[in-house]
């Protein structure tokens, strides 16, 4: 039984190298460069298909100026999905459970969308702060609220990713411990718990992919507003 359920989120060090370094460099290994052949191997074909579909889907709401971001957003999505799916393997470390990493992703990208909007079309960007059709009385209050909601976006992006993953991992560990402990005492309950664990693992797989997608999608939306 784990002494402390939060131990899985500490990055252990071995020979002075933290495990997070290995975990962060593994996605690079799993996506090899396509060769100049017409038909690649199966792994590359699958990856290429997925990346094409995703990019096409993601670039729908953006106008031409936003298409410059295609490479960045696609690589973000691939990186986040791979990091999370790898984190679901036993004994591995998920770097995206660290708030510092997620904020490091969220703040610069969000700031870039805001600065681009303010630089290219300042009136339109500032105009987003006031939704159309508000009663005149509410205008000052609403501007403050909208500014605040604009400023809290990077925090929300980062914390959403961190919290979802951390909660998922903790749940898996708790239910797994419960099933393990109950097995000698009440086998039926243990089997029920094992079923719950199985379903939860499926959920985690889904959540991993969805969270990455949501992150990138929101960035595209912010970009769309500001391009």
């Amino acid at each position: 039984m784990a002494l402390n359920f939060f131990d899985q989120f500490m990055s252990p060090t071995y020979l002075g190298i933290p495990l997070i370094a290995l975990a962060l460099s593994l996605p690079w290994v799993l996506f090899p460069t396509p060769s100049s052949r017409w038909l690649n191997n199966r792994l590359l074909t699958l990856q290429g298909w997925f990346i094409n579909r995703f990019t096409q889907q993601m670039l729908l709401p953006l106008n031409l100026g936003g298409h410059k971001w295609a490479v960045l957003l696609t690589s973000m999505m691939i990186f986040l999905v791979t990091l999370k799916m790898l984190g679901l393997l036993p004994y591995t470390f998920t770097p995206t459970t660290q708030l510092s990493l997620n904020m490091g992703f969220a703040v610069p990208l969000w700031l870039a969308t805001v600065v681009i909007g303010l630089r290219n079309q300042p009136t339109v960007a500032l105009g987003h702060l006031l939704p159309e059709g508000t009663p005149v009385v509410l205008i000052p209050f609403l501007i403050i609220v909208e500014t605040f909601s604009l400023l809290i976006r990077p925090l929300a992006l980062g914390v959403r990713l961190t919290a979802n993953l951390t909660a998922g991992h903790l749940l898996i560990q708790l239910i797994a411990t419960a099933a393990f402990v109950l097995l000698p005492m009440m086998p039926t309950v243990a089997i029920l718990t094992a079923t719950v664990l199985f379903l939860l693992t499926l959920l985690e797989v889904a959540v991993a992919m969805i969270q990455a997608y949501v992150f990138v999608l929101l960035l595209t939306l912010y970009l769309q507003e500001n391009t």
Partner: protein
Amino acid sequence: MADRPVPVAEKRLMDVKLGELPSWLGTRDFTPNGLINSVRGGYERYYNKYINVRKGGIGGVAMLLAGYVALSYLWEYDHIKHDRWRKYH
């Protein structure tokens, strides 16, 4: 049958005899560039043998992931060995 004698430096690792191992290690290139090249060479050998084949299955990637799990376990062993069944925490 007597093979033609080959200098130690040119042998691959699997052909080096145990007694010759220190001298073989002495001929290897341990500069950062050499290390990077050896890692890249190893990766390309693995990739071309298991993944870049006409009908590759899940085995190539699965072996990589299993190795990653094992390496992570090794990395975290000092940390995990405190997780034991205890009566009182």
